[in-house]
């Protein structure tokens, strides 16, 4: 009944509605049904994201182990013990070092190549759709599928080594402890580049044509224009690209698992997420794995802040 009366009032365009529905409007908004429309999504987020997020932190501070469903066991609070255990594990140090190598190769390569290709794409009109589609295809394809081809291409007797002839690296790419991680980084750059090209392409649309025109009037060449107009013009996109590329790097799992056969050779391409899987799920130590997850996320946050300073530094 009350809903009817509100509808009636709303139908009336009079300037002073009844005080009762007005108070309701003030409390829940003009269309309180919006709450009902949002409820399933909010419940989903709380159940699948917010609660597990808190749970991860809880697990990382307790002596946690797997039990059969419904069995109540004591899981004592252990303070920072899991964190200490993780940080003193040489494998963890190795995996963070690997990710460091990965990021040093992947992030600058991604930023440079995607900006250059986006810029070229922006100038050329012929075959534009074809180019856009071909750059984006690796991004929409399952990593598991393309990993198959890369294994084939980079194997001992693969096409890449056939092409290189005597220049081929001796322990081949993926089984070479110095080259394994760079190859993984190269693979991920190739796979993700299309997405970043589109990000830059969108950002390039926001640079006013007039800037290029007045620059060429002033005698600036194409290369000068690229560095003085294009690069600063897409700075906010660059911040986003470096951030997303870093997050992708920190999430690395499928590639070391499949491309280098489980982080080999000899742990030269393990990633923190791969260790979380090994420690937490295979060996049944979810507590240290959760601690590793927390450390990893904090690490990404710190790197993101540093990058923001570096890339977006000159922003007002």
């Amino acid at each position: 009944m009350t809903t009817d009366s509100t509808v009636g009032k709303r139908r009336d365009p009079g300037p002073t509605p009844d005080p009762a529905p007005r108070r309701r409007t003030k409390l829940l908004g003009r269309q309180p049904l919006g709450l009902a429309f949002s409820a399933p999504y909010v419940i989903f987020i709380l159940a699948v994201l917010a609660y597990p997020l808190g749970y991860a932190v809880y697990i990382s501070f307790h002596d946690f182990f797997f039990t059969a469903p419904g069995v109540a066991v004591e899981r004592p609070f252990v303070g920072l013990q899991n964190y200490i255990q993780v940080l003193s594990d040489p494998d963890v140090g190795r995996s963070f070092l690997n990710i460091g190598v990965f990021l040093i190769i992947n992030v600058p390569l991604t930023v440079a190549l995607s900006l250059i290709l986006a810029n070229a794409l922006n100038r050329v009109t012929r075959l534009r759709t074809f180019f856009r589609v071909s750059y984006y295809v690796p991004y929409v394809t399952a990593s598991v599928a393309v990993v198959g081809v890369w294994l084939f291409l980079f194997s001992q007797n693969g096409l890449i080594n056939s092409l290189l002839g005597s220049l081929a690296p001796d322990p081949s790419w993926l089984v070479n402890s110095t080259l394994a991680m760079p190859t993984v980084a190269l693979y991920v750059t190739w796979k993700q580049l299309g997405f970043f090209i589109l990000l830059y392409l969108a950002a390039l649309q926001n640079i006013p044509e007039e800037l290029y025109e007045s620059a060429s009037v002033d005698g600036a060449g194409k290369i000068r224009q690229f560095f003085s107009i294009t690069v600063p013009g897409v700075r906010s996109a660059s911040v986003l690209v470096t951030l997303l590329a870093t997050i992708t790097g920190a999430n690395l799992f499928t590639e070391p698992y499949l491309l280098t056969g489980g982080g080999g050779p000899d742990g030269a391409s393990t990633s923190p997420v791969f260790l979380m899987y090994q420690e937490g799920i295979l060996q049944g130590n979810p507590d240290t794995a959760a601690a590793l997850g927390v450390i990893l996320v904090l690490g990404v946050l710190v790197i993101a802040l540093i990058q923001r300073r570096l890339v977006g530094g000159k922003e007002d």
Partner: protein
Amino acid sequence: MAKDFQHTMTKTTTTTPAGAPAPPPRTSRRKKGKGGLKPLSFILLALGAFVFLFPFYYMLIGSLQTEPDTSITGAFPTVGNITGQNYVLINESINLFRGLINSGIFTGGVILCTVIFGIPVGYALAQMHFRGRGMVFALMLLVQMVPFQLLLIPLYVLIVRDYGLADSYLGMTLPFAINSTAVFVFRQYFLQLPASLFEAARIDGASEMRILTQIAIPLVRPAIVTAILLTFIGPWNEFLWPFLVTKDAAYQPLAVSLANYISNVAATAANPFGAILAGACVLAAPAVGLFILFQRQFISTNIGSSAKG
């Protein structure tokens, strides 16, 4: 204001003298591009396209070879070396059809939940005024920044251990059920519709449910296609989570069973690369096909709300 005006003034005065002999400035650059004489850019792009497409071509060729030929001539199809045997081989080790069905159920479940629950939220965020709207919006943005690796262990503990949802479609689907990016896309599209339209419908006494289903949804059909495509590639390509949840081959999506084949079984096969690449083609084909078919929708999403037409 005055400074702004002066700024535009100086700008026009600098451009006019140069623009006088040439065509008007707006079109000049575009025309230069159309003239096709951007050889360096074009070569760069063609080189890029080759690097991006060649592995896919090689995937197909490799999947059809009787004997893996890794020499340079092996990159071209030779009549004597073509076979469908690899597809039979991989199908004997991992049931391709079963894998496709499982991937389909997993992906379909996510798409269904995203459409059913995501559209109302997107609409509410764009065209309804209610308490907490800002919070829901902030939540949606925040969610996209939560790294999955932090959720890995707790979700595994909860879904697999506590709720016992290992080897089930529900356990697979649950963490991905509503795609937040799709919700964002819905909101962006609903936001582009004029608010007066909805005000008018409300004054006429239409319920919100009716406005949503009979006015708003028919107007954003392209958004729904876009969101479905966008949502599709997530679960279809997802490896880590279904890999953790499904140990029983009968429930494994194709990405998981193919990955297991690559890491375990391949060593015992006669032509492991042929079989792997055959499986890879089957896994890649639906996503690549859909993408090429609907590439316009895919690309316009990423360009974002700048596409107003």
